[in-house]
């Protein structure tokens, strides 16, 4: 049941109709039921996995809160980390480790080992595991009081709008909203939700799926068959495909939640307008980057133990962040590129004064920095998208071969201008106003015109084949 499917909107209509007729406690029970139904539509067998994670973390946090012995508390939080990361590792990385193990066996001239079973990756496992872990760690650190009601906690873990692809919520943000009565649907809430749902659908259905058409062609082709301009076009198309896909999902999740009285955290803030890598990670997948900062980078020592260790921590955090996306070396390289880039940026910022970053840049400097940052982000996307590192290098090498304006380049560039042009102008306008919700503050006829444009684009220019959300596989 994808957000861009009719089934989801029918399901949501029923959920909203019932939800707003119930009191708070019943709303929670009903949302839990709806969330399990939503997840069960993918594969009901994995409901047991979510249920296990929920029950186990509820038990662990109860023990942590009840124990006054620091060693016992530490044992419980360690158990939680081992079990949750163990499950994640088993489902997500088992195949990867077997493959690497067989590679070593092959080098040694030994026979390959075929495991007796294959594991399917449960949808959204990385998201809800990280959300559950952050809760347990926060309880351990004393930043969150443990949730007393099991069913409320189960809803916190499985809340359907953000269950399979985030945003990864923090317990001290989402849990109080679960436990306490939520605001009723006001005009402001409806308006904010509508805006997010409309822009989210536009990003996914119009931008991401149409860009996928171009990007898939380039990334699935033999690099020798493409010239440099075609490869570059494919890389740009993928950059906007993944942005539209993931930011679109997040926007719909946040918008739909608003209609139910929940406020989820912002996950994307015009990331391609970032002027350096640090800023990029403050704008891209904010819930993951802040999770990695709080639960990995800072515990590793952050920037408190000297410059050398800070750089190590940055690279390590980004490499592990890359690995979070999938079990492949390409994700490791993608993370490493971002880690090294963050380190280089840090060196640059320190060399030319940290204040340099905060000093208002001249507009031309800012434009050049944004464009440069975008190129480097795109370079890293090549490794993210290709099935192997060799393929990524072959594509990058193809960038240097021939720059003729082929039919593909002309048509692809025209299609990108058609689909992306208005959206980039819209984001630029938001960026200049420094306000992601700027559209809600303009006179209503302008908003109506914008929505009409979005609806017509959704109606007439949805991609011929809908594409599954990329981040579901993570």
């Amino acid at each position, binding site marked *: 049941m994808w957000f861009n*499917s*009719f*089934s989801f909107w*029918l399901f949501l209509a029923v959920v909203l109709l019932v939800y707003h007729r119930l009191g708070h406690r019943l709303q929670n029970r009903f949302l839990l039921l709806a969330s399990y139904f939503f997840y069960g539509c993918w594969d009901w067998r994995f409901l047991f996995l979510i249920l296990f994670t929920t029950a186990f973390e509820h038990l662990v946090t109860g023990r942590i809160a009840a124990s006054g012995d620091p060693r016992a508390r530490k044992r419980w939080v360690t158990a939680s980390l081992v079990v949750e990361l163990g499950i994640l590792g088993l489902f997500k990385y088992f195949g990867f480790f077997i493959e690497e193990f067989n590679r070593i066996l092959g080098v040694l001239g030994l026979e390959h080992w075929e495991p007796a079973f294959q594991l399917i990756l449960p949808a959204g496992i990385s998201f809800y595991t990280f959300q559950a872990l952050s809760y347990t760690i926060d309880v351990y650190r004393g930043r969150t009081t443990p949730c007393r009601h099991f069913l409320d906690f189960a809803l916190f873990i499985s809340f359907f709008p953000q269950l399979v692809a985030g945003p990864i919520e923090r317990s001290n943000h989402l849990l109080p909203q679960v436990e306490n009565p939520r605001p009723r649907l006001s*005009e402001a809430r*409806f*308006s904010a939700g*509508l805006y997010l749902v409309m822009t989210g659908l536009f990003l996914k259905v119009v931008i991401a799926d149409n860009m996928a*058409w171009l990007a898939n*062609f380039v990334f*699935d*082709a033999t690099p020798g068959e493409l010239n440099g301009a075609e490869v570059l076009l494919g890389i740009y198309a993928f950059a906007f495909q993944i942005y539209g896909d993931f930011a679109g999902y997040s926007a719909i999740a946040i918008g739909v939640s608003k209609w139910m009285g929940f406020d989820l955290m912002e996950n994307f803030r015009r990331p391609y307008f970032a002027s350096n890598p640090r800023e990029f990670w403050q704008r891209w997948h904010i819930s993951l980057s802040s999770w990695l900062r709080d639960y990995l980078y800072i515990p590793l020592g952050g920037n408190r133990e000297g410059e050398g260790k800070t750089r190590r921590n940055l690279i390590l955090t980004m490499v592990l962040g890359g690995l979070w996306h999938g079990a492949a070396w390409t994700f490791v390289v993608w993370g490493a590129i971002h880690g090294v880039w963050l380190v280089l940026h840090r060196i640059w910022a320190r060399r030319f004064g940290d204040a340099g970053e905060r000093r208002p840049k001249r507009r031309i400097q800012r434009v050049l920095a944004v464009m440069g940052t975008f190129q480097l982000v795109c370079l890293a996307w090549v490794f993210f998208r290709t099935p192997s590192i060799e393929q990524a290098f072959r594509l990058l090498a193809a960038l240097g071969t021939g720059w003729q304006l*082929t*039919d*593909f*380049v*002309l*048509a*692809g560039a*025209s*299609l990108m201008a*058609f689909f992306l042009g208005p959206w980039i102008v819209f984001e630029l306008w938001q960026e200049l106003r420094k306000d992601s919700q700027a559209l809600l503050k303009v006179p*209503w*006829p302008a*908003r*109506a015109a914008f*929505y*009409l444009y979005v*609806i*017509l684009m959704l*109606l*007439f*220019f*949805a991609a*011929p084949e809908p594409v599954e959300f990329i981040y579901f596989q993570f």
Partner: protein
Amino acid sequence: MKLNNEAKVVLVVVLGVIFLEIVSRMFEPRLSADVRQMLSQKEIPERIGKARSEGRESVLVLGNSLARASLLESGIRERFVELGRPDPEVLYLAPDGSDISDWTAAYRHCFLGRSPSQAPDYILIGTGQTHLEDNPVVSPEKLAAYHAGREDYGIILWSWLGTTGERCRFLSASVSRLMANRERLRPILFYNFVPGFEEVARRLNEAEKTEVVPPGERNASAGRFGLLLDSIPVPPERVMVAAIPLPWSYRLNKAVLETAEKRGVRVFAVEVLREWPAEAFPDGYHLSAVDGAIYTKAVMARLLPQR
């Protein structure tokens, strides 16, 4: 009653969509020849009735663009003239990209509940390799807007359409022409105004093209084809399935052949005719006019043998 701003936004958007719906209905016949052809389907029974009142016979061709290119009106008429019979009324119910789901629904919508005098005298069903099999519906929108009658909504919604999404598309297109024709604007705009788009679409489609399943390995059912044959009041010897030549050789699905045989309907199978050279398919899929005429002649000789 005073509306708040967001209600005004929603109201304007809804009114805008209604306005576009009206416009699309006004200009619908101008959208394409295919739409005009589909809109004219409802006139078929009247035209048959008129021909009968003039003492002329009628031939209805069911199919898609393959049938239009391979079962030519001139060739059909010619056979009647050869046999010394009056010039027949030849009618096509053959929209682009359609298959058995559309043909069955359209036939039933046109003829069920009509007077027997408005039923065709002969029916030719032109099919490619898989068009008579129970495949997923190609376009639920087209099926709803142009082919299906209300009496078949039940079977279409619960048996033919496989997902909630398809059912929603079907139902929304049954009330909205905007929805029904939503996929037409994109190619019109892109093919005419995006430089190089035709070449790109060809390359992209080629990359995505699925392999043709070898004959004998298909296992589809033919329930919709059976429903079509059961809905035809014409004696079975006046109905014929014509397997249209394609650039590759093929056999029709076993279930299709059995369904036809069970009802006494003859199948003109392509492999009995001859091998068709690549030059016979100038666009790589449809027969040329010359080869279409040859094929029509062969089919008509079987449908109307010399007594």
